[in-house]
């Protein structure tokens, strides 16, 4: 039996979908202009240097689970991984990706496998390049220093869900003098990462990683859709504030 329908929710969903597909359609004739984000600008060079020097790139997907509400930043991290993996496939030490959740590890392994197959070097893929370090946040972080040191990690990317342990994860990279870029979805953890990481990703910058790393046109379109909806929200908030100040609405 058909019950109630959340019209507003469906309309918002359709708005997102329409903007995403619309911006994707006009993307070729209307190129995306990116705001400078130092971390993403330096990341390409840092990865190239790591590949040249025979050092490792490490991408951490954090300690969140796939089925939890904290999966979104790790999914954004997986989008970045597909690009990073394709760049490092021919390196002696290709990218290593770690997670604190079994299902997330499997998604990372599949993303790596796809990237290797697309680069036509599927035989170089090793399943152990995607690893689960520990099932709890602190056991995951406790394993990081050994991984960073033993794998000669020189680029340390943190793109996933982190709590306070994210600060430790970033600091371990800094102590090994690695290039550290870190982002998460939690506002308090972002404040900790701002202090400990060389290049923190603030706010929603973690979700823009795919667009900045040129993963595909729909990533750029989603960034534009995000900006458009944000502007809409800003206009609505300002209009509401003015109307309330004038006493039009209570």
């Amino acid at each position: 039996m058909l019950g109630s329908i959340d019209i507003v929710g469906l309309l918002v969903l359709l708005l997102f979908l329409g903007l995403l597909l619309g911006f994707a359609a006009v993307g070729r004739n209307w190129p995306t202009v990116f705001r400078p984000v130092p971390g993403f600008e330096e990341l390409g060079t840092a990865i190239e240097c790591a590949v040249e020097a025979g050092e490792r790139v490490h991408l951490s997907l954090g300690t969140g689970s796939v089925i939890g509400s904290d999966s979104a930043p790790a999914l954004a991290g997986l989008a970045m991984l597909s690009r990073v993996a394709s760049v490092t496939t021919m390196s002696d030490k290709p990218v290593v990706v770690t997670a604190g959740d079994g299902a997330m590890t499997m998604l990372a392994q599949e993303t790596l496998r796809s990237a290797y197959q697309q680069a036509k070097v599927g035989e170089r893929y090793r399943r152990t390049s995607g690893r689960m370090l520990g099932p709890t946040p602190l056991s995951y972080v406790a394993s990081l220093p050994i991984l960073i040191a033993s794998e000669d990690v020189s680029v340390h990317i943190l793109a996933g869900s982190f709590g306070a342990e994210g600060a430790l994860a970033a600091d371990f990279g800094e102590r090994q003098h690695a290039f550290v870029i870190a982002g998460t979805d939690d506002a308090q953890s972002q404040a900790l990462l701002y202090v400990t990481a060389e290049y923190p990703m603030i706010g929603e910058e973690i979700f823009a990683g795919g667009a900045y790393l040129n993963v595909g046109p729909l990533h750029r379109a989603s960034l534009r859709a995000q900006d458009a909806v944000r502007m809409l929200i800003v206009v609505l908030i300002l209009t509401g504030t003015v109307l309330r100040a004038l006493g039009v609405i209570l």
Partner: protein
Amino acid sequence: MWAAAAVGSGIFVLLGYFIDYEVILTLRLILMRWSVLLAAVALFLGLFNLLTVHWSKVSEQEKGWPFSALLILAFLVTLIMGLVFGPDNQISLLLFNYIQLPVEAGLMALLAVFLAVAGFRLVSRRRDPFSLIFVVVALFVLLGTGPTLGASDGDGYVLLRQLRNWIAQVWASGGARGILLGVALGAGLTGLRVLLAVDRPYGD
């Protein structure tokens, strides 16, 4: 095929949040239960992956292999204890309360030291107005939150507490709401990309 299955499942679960229709709600519940079961199986596979990686490190005597050997030993001892005696047994609880808990608490306590050092490093490395504002605000909030050495009802301390509350409740709350709005938008569009099979972390 994987993409079609993932997109179909995703659409049904998403629609279940918006449309109160019995078939969709039942299907959503079944899919969510399956996902919980699959996540539990994935945890086992993840632990197997953990063992495989460390076993290969030990067998090839790679750098840091003694740590890997220790991890395998601790893993097997904990697993056997749990399987033989059960998770609520005295020995299993002893392992948890006297080894895992203190180690994790110790690591968390280190965070305060790490952050203090990182704060000094931030000022010396990133010399821009934002870093300076960040450190100054952090100091104010720290002084306004912690216990005072002098009189806690003195004018200076009351002013500091008021300043701390003003920063935390007006500026920090406003900024955090802005960040959360941006994060929510980014998370929504990331989910939509997975739903449209633009991002395929489950494979092609």
